[in-house]
């Protein structure tokens, strides 16, 4: 007879116990459900809030960046141009914000009961994904509206890359988020800095401006940001404008794999003893 549970001081670096995560799949779906149903409880507008946020942001960008600063939008109508970037970026930043808080926000539960900790960030990126799909319908409505108006926007086959874009985006936010959350169990400074970093990051991503406004010999600098190619590919696939290259997308993918691996290593290390330092 063998022992079924063995508790040891250390685990292997890149060990992910998929079997265990699978055992807790009900908890995972429960967390996702909880995130969704509790986010707009006791509000009058309820799920309408899913649309209000991107809508207001779009209007704001139209006034500030489109109207006052007169930043070009690749020849597209401003609403659809901004909305495309905002929908994806908000998914990314929402994931980052919540996963980067995993340990601190859940120390109450983590200190009392064990389950694979990675369930929490996994469920957050999932519930945010559901939210993003709801918001994407706003993009689709605006899209159809412009098609009816006769504006020249044509989707192409690169639209099929959409699931891959989402996987890269989710992986990036998960990887980066769990690194931050692991590091902030000791020092919270990073948390304060973090909001600032996310904001700066947005400006370094072609959301309020197209990548094509940069001189071609400088575009590679922008492409160092792994999110750039995702936003550009999305715009290219849905509306036929923007910059697409397999190289840039491949870079983003590799970046995501690397970041996620580092994230898992750090997360594994921290999760076993963070209760002592948090």
């Amino acid at each position: 007879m063998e022992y079924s549970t063995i508790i040891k001081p250390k685990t292997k670096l890149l060990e992910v116990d998929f079997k265990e995560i699978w055992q807790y799949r009900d908890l995972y779906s429960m967390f996702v459900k909880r995130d969704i149903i509790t986010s707009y409880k006791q509000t009058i507008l309820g799920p309408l809030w899913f649309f209000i946020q991107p809508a207001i942001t779009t209007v704001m960008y139209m006034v500030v960046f489109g109207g006052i600063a007169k930043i070009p939008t690749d020849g597209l109508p401003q609403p659809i141009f901004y909305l495309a970037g905002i929908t994806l970026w908000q998914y990314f930043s929402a994931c980052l914000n919540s996963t980067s808080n995993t340990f601190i926000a859940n120390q109450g539960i983590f200190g009392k009961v064990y389950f694979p900790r990675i369930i929490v960030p996994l469920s957050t990126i999932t519930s945010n994904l559901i939210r993003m799909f709801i918001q994407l319908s706003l993009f689709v409505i605006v899209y159809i509206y412009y098609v009816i108006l006769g504006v020249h926007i044509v989707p192409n086959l690169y639209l099929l890359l959409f699931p891959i874009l989402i996987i890269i985006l989710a992986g990036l936010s998960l990887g980066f988020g769990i690194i931050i959350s692991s590091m902030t169990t000791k020092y919270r400074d990073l948390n304060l800095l973090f909001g600032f970093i996310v904001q700066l990051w947005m400006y370094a991503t072609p959301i309020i401006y197209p990548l094509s406004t940069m001189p071609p010999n400088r575009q590679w600098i922008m492409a160092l940001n792994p999110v750039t190619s995702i936003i550009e590919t999305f715009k290219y696939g849905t509306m036929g404008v923007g910059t697409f290259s397999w190289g840039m997308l491949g870079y983003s993918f590799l970046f995501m794999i690397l970041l996620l691996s580092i994230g898992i290593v750090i997360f594994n290390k921290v999760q076993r003893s963070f209760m002592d330092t948090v």
Partner: protein
Amino acid sequence: MLPAIKFENISKEYRLGLITSQTLNHDLQRWWKMNIQGKDDPYLKIGEMNDRTTKGTCDYIWALKDINFEVQQGDVLGIIGQNGAGKSTLLKILSKVTAPTTGTIKANGRIASLLEVGTGFHPEMTGRENIFMNGAILGMNKSEIRSKFEEIVDFSGVERYIDTPVKRYSSGMMVRLGFAVAAHLDPEILVVDEVLAVGDAEFQKKAIGKMGEISKGEGRTVLFVSHSMRAISDLCNRAVLLSNGSVLLDDTTKIVVEKYLETTQIILSKASWFGDNAPGNDCIKLRRGYIINAEGEDIDTAFINERIGICYEYEVIKDISYFNHSINVYNLMDQHLFTSHDDHKFNRNQTIKRGFYKTVAWIPENLLQDGDTFFSFGCVRYDPFELMFHEKNLLRIYMLDTIKVGTKNRSLFSGLPGLVRPHLIWNERTKLK
């Protein structure tokens, strides 16, 4: 057969240098307090452990050191020890909340830990949703919870509110619901921290009853941490005594509990105090306390139909004006049962000279309930009322209900409910015309 759990050289070290606090500011403060002012680490979570380090020079603190023992399948093991002995750390390691520094724990079967009831309850979700949520956190899957749902709701007794968000619940209802979920876990190994110390007396009884059922009925292994020697004695067949992070004793419950009561300054039926630190105030110092029966013999246990005398001897250090005595009585759960003030008439101008005095308060038969009972002592003046001092937890007696002795009726095994156990005078039944 393999033991259910085997602890092999389990140690848990807290390294001061790595216990970083939230900000550098805290670290600097700690450094200032410990190295410059020579005080204790203000941010160390396990302060009680500090005594085992050489102050300021040692970087290591062992919350647990070389823990080795085995728990057989079906054992109900009590873990006892003073605050900071390492009980909770041990449970945390076993629950995988934190990792051991060295050593291995090998276990057979699913471990469910109950370090808190209602972990993960979300205030905005209904009782029903939270049962599923909490069950999932504790390791149950949906179908398991669904099949036990009725039972859980029934046990919790909050059926009426099951579709109301739990933020509308009273704290007691939350605890009931939380415990109800936990009680229906089906693990081979159950780890329970002092969760029973919450909730009202009725619920505690229910919870302890359920624990007993779990452990006796299905041959499951239970590890139970408690400060209540009563609960430990009632539930456990074996106990481990931890002291400063090591196992001091591993034996039958009776032997371990006795040893614990002996070695710790736990409240006894007899006590003496010396010097200036004795309970009292500047003028009055308690010197001795003990409990006697009607024959004047010292006792530590009494039947509830015996009268007992609570005796206090005190020293008046300097002459003071007249005062009187009072006593308060508490049960094991620290519930205040009643108070009594010495009502001997006195003359306010009278002084009490230096010297030793004694007072006895007689508690009549048929009043105290079964179980541990604790006594305080205070000195008071009346008109206007002035409390000169009041010291709790000075003496203890174990009251025994006569109904429990030699009874064959198992439902009376845990005694009758209620805070007191008076013997009322009943008229004989008369037939009405």
